[in-house]
């Protein structure tokens, strides 16, 4: 035979492997060879090669057409059968689809929320290279308000730093354009390179040069609209009351997206804080951001700068700088993991709810197995292989998941506006549809379908056709242990969530009700600008003459919004350590207005003119930490770098009862009150509870008289206080909602399963009744069947939820103790709900006529 130079198209054999087995392939190969050799003898090699390829295509075409047609036929059949089952078992299908819909809707909502949380600050182009510098203190906590001297020093000394900028959140100012005056609370101050580091898109102006002039401002589109309407904002002049100076708008940026932790309406130059303050290493003023050069490792750079405070502040300095990636800033809360934990918590809950819906599906699908057993048997007899049947049932599950997805999308779209408002985010789903989202949704659907369908598919496909077809009575207990385990899992999750919900709401109530050591009802805070302070005393007196006004005072901050930190030393200090304390500046009548009792000594008083210069009031904790039994008249020294040396010493004139100056996450710290009027920013006015509306009108009128043309901008202190716990309240409400849904899903499943079990035991119950069992006994028997598993679920859920919730409570310095009551309550609740769910069926069957039960064939 002639040497075969003819090459067979190998790729065809490779592809044909998908459709057929080796043996047929061997036949094809042999045949093709012979054909090709013959062809080359007859027509020459070139044509033969062409013919050979052609045969290959023909083979591939025939095989793929064949398999496609076969697949389509089977797929049509699967879909037809699936629809038939959905229609025939309406209740089960309803429960399945409803459960999966709820599960997926929750999953989608929480998914959107989590995605938004994780997207914070990721829109900056240089995000990978931007870091915020934190101070890590000796007690391992971190602080992001650090010295403004650090940024420039890093930039000057280290070539690794491309840019450094400092950001100051200015409290507020009146801003005037021609005759319009508004109160602006979101004024930031920063360095000119701010817009080189962060990518806030400019609508007008140049990000490189926008802030190069000291008296320039960059504002958002929204702010521009507010002041200038349709006019071109560029070059317009705004007057800021804080510095009583004119500023020129040199840039307009797009409104800041919700997922930015830097949120400002107006951006000016940080130099207005004063050179001293910017250069002081000891004062902790605000955040510093640095942009590292590409390819600089942050870890290595961190080790390089460890000594920077020792060099500049003093060799005994105990804190070190630390780099925090920009994308982590949003999750940072001083001293506690906070949001990250919230994100994981909700992700877990979302997963739980979806899993519970899947469990429903599994339970109901396997419970119905006897209905499908015949079908499986028939398919197998006709020649279906096990994997085909698995594919069929998986396909059915995915189909139902797909229905659920469509319903869930509709539901989410309807809920989303409320959910967005509630979480303070702008979330969208369908309007932002893109390929990756579609892909994710399909993946979720497929995942859910497979998760829900895999166990039923494996279970149902394991039937032996001979057994199933021979005896119509299918052994009913098969698969039930797993079903019971699934119920236990479901109810464990539910009970765990119930316990957590109880504890979260208890803790929230505790916070709301806790005596803070100061009064916050019917008090308004009024923002006062520097020019107003000299007029304040007259303003106060004119108000006090009015009916409905109880007390008037002023201070630098509301008493529960104080974060300024100083070191204090005192006469007779036995140790060589100073203690760190919070401080604030207040006016006369401060303690009276907030009803803070003075335990020793006295409050600031006009009778002692020296009070304004040399007096201070401390809280109980400070007195205790100093270790002096009677601290009144002790001299203390406050290490505040911004104060002149002569002002740093003061005499204690009174001790005020402990109060919560920070949120209940942290323990009460030592506190010092002083009088220093130039720093006052708020007037606080206590009104009589019964006359709030009238008093407000009076205050407004008085304010207008004293500062004509300036808007009357005030806030209620109880609202301000509650804002501290927004995150907790959200957590509480979401917990309530998701717990409710999870219990609902679990009950749906239980309902379906109960109806099925009762149906299966119809004959047994009929016989029991004939033999004389009472209605109650029958009902009790069928009910107990389920209740014992729910009791078991309780036993599992208790320790787990105890463990998880005590972790959560650790975030609070002041917290409830976890008592046994919540667990008992959760148990009772779960049992009652389960009882109600099951009893519908058990009572129905117990009351029915045994003759009817036994005659069902």
């Amino acid at each position, binding site marked *: *035979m002639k040497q075969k130079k003819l090459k067979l198209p190998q790729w065809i054999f490779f592809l044909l492997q998908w*459709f*057929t*087995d080796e*043996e*047929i392939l*061997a*036949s*094809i190969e*042999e*045949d*093709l060879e*012979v*054909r090709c050799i013959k062809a080359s003898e007859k027509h020459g090699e070139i044509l033969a090669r062409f013919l050979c390829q052609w*045969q290959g295509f*023909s*083979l*591939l*075409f*025939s*095989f793929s*057409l*064949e398999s496609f047609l076969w697949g389509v036929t089977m797929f049509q059949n699967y879909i037809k059968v699936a629809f038939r089952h959905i229609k025939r078992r309406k209740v089960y299908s309803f429960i399945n689809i409803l459960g999966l819909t709820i599960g997926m809707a929750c999953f989608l909502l929480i998914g959107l929320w989590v995605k938004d949380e994780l997207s914070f600050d990721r829109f900056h182009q240089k995000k990978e290279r931007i870091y915020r510098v934190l101070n890590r203190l000796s007690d391992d906590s971190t602080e992001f308000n650090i010295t403004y001297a650090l940024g420039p020093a890093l930039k000057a000394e280290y070539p690794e730093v491309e840019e450094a900028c400092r950001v100051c959140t200015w409290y507020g100012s009146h801003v005037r354009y021609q005759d319009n005056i508004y109160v602006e609370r979101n004024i930031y101050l920063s360095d000119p390179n701010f817009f080189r580091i962060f990518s806030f898109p400019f609508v007008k102006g140049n990000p490189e040069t926008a802030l190069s002039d000291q008296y320039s401002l960059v504002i958002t589109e929204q702010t521009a609209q507010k002041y200038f309407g349709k006019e071109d904002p560029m070059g317009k002049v705004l007057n800021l009351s804080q510095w009583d100076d004119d500023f020129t708008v040199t840039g307009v940026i797009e409104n800041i997206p919700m997922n930015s932790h830097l949120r400002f309406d107006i951006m000016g130059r940080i130099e207005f804080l004063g050179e001293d303050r910017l250069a002081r290493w000891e004062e902790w003023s605000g955040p510093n951001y640095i942009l590292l050069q590409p390819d600089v490792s942050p870890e290595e750079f961190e080790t390089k700068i460890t000594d920077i405070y020792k060099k500049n502040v003093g060799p005994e300095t105990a804190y070190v700088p630390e780099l925090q990636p920009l994308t982590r800033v949003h999750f940072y809360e001083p001293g506690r993991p906070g949001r990250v934990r919230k994100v994981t918590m909700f992700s877990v809950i979302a997963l739980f709810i979806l899993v519970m819906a899947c469990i429903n599906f599994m339970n109901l699908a396997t419970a119905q197995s006897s209905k499908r057993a015949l079908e499986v048997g028939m398919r197998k007899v006709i*020649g279906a292989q096990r994997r085909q049947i698995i594919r069929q049932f998986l396909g059915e599950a995915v189909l139902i998941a797909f229905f659920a997805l469509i319903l869930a999308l509709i539901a989410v779209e309807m809920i989303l506006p409320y959910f967005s408002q509630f979480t303070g985010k702008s979330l969208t789903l369908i309007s932002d549809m893109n390929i990756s989202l579609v892909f994710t949704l399909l993946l979720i659907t497929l995942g859910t379908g497979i998760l829900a369908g895999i166990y039923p598919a494996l279970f149902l496909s394991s039937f032996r056709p001979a057994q199933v077809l021979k005896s119509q009575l299918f052994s009913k207990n098969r698969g039930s242990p797993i079903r019971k385990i699934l119920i236990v899992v479901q109810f464990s999750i539910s009970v765990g969530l119930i316990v957590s919900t109880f504890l979260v709401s208890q803790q929230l109530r505790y916070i709301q009700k806790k005596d803070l050591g100061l009064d916050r009802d019917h008090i308004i805070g009024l923002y006062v600008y520097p020019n107003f302070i000299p007029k304040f005393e007259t303003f106060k007196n004119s108000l006090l003459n009015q009916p409905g006004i109880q007390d008037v005072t002023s201070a630098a901050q509301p008493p529960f919004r104080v974060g300024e930190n100083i070191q204090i030393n005192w006469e007779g200090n036995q140790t060589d350590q100073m203690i760190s304390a919070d401080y604030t500046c207040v006016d006369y009548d401060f303690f009276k207005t907030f009803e803070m009792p003075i335990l020793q000594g006295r409050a600031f008083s006009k009778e002692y003119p020296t009070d304004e210069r040399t007096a201070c009031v401390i809280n109980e904790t400070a007195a205790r930490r100093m270790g002096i039994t009677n601290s009144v008249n002790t001299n203390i020294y406050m290490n505040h770098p911004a104060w002149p040396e002569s002002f740093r010493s003061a005499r204690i004139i009174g001790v005020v009862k402990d109060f919560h100056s920070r949120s209940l996450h942290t323990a009460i710290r030592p506190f010092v009150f002083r009088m220093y009027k130039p720093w006052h920013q708020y007037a606080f006015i206590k009104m009589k509870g019964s006359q709030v509306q009238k008093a407000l009108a009076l205050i407004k009128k008085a304010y207008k008289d004293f500062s004509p043309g300036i808007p009357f901008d005030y806030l209620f202190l109880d609202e301000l206080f509650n804002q501290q716990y927004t995150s907790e309240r959200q957590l509480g409400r979401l917990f309530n909602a998701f717990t409710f849904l999870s219990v609902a899903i679990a009950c749906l499943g239980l309902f379906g399963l109960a109806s099925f079990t009762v149906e299966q035991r119809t004959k047994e119950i009929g016989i029991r009744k004939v033999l004389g069992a009472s209605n109650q006994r029958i009902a009790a028997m069928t009910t107990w069947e389920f209740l014992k598993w729910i009791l078991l679920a309780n036993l599992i859920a208790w320790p787990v939820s105890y463990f998880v919730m005590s972790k959560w409570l650790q975030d609070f310095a002041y917290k409830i103790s976890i008592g046994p009551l919540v667990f008992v309550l959760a148990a009772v609740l779960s049992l009652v709900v389960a009882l109600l769910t099951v009893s519908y069926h058990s009572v129905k069957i117990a009351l029915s006529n045994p003759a009817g039960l036994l005659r069902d064939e």
Partner: protein
Amino acid sequence: MEVLSKIEEILLLAIWKLKENAYGISIREQVEKDTGVKWRSGAIYAPLNRLKKNGYVRTLKAKSSGEKGGRPRIYYQLTQLGKKKLITTQDVNESIWMGVPDLKNEFES
């Protein structure tokens, strides 16, 4: 019960006729001889694959008779099920053709 498709019938019959000597090439040649036309490979092997999957045909591996130089050749055989199918098909065919008025004579005349 489903009836065999024409190509399935032709293939099964070809294998049956070839007895011990039914392998890829011989089957194709037999089919071509019976039908008098050339067949594409795909038109033969895809249905053959189906017949095997359905269990009408089984394969045997055997040394080929020389010319291929010891390379194993795959032989095909009918299974019991295949034979039963073929019998049913024959019955069906016979009943279809039964009582057909003399077609050829009428056509030619």
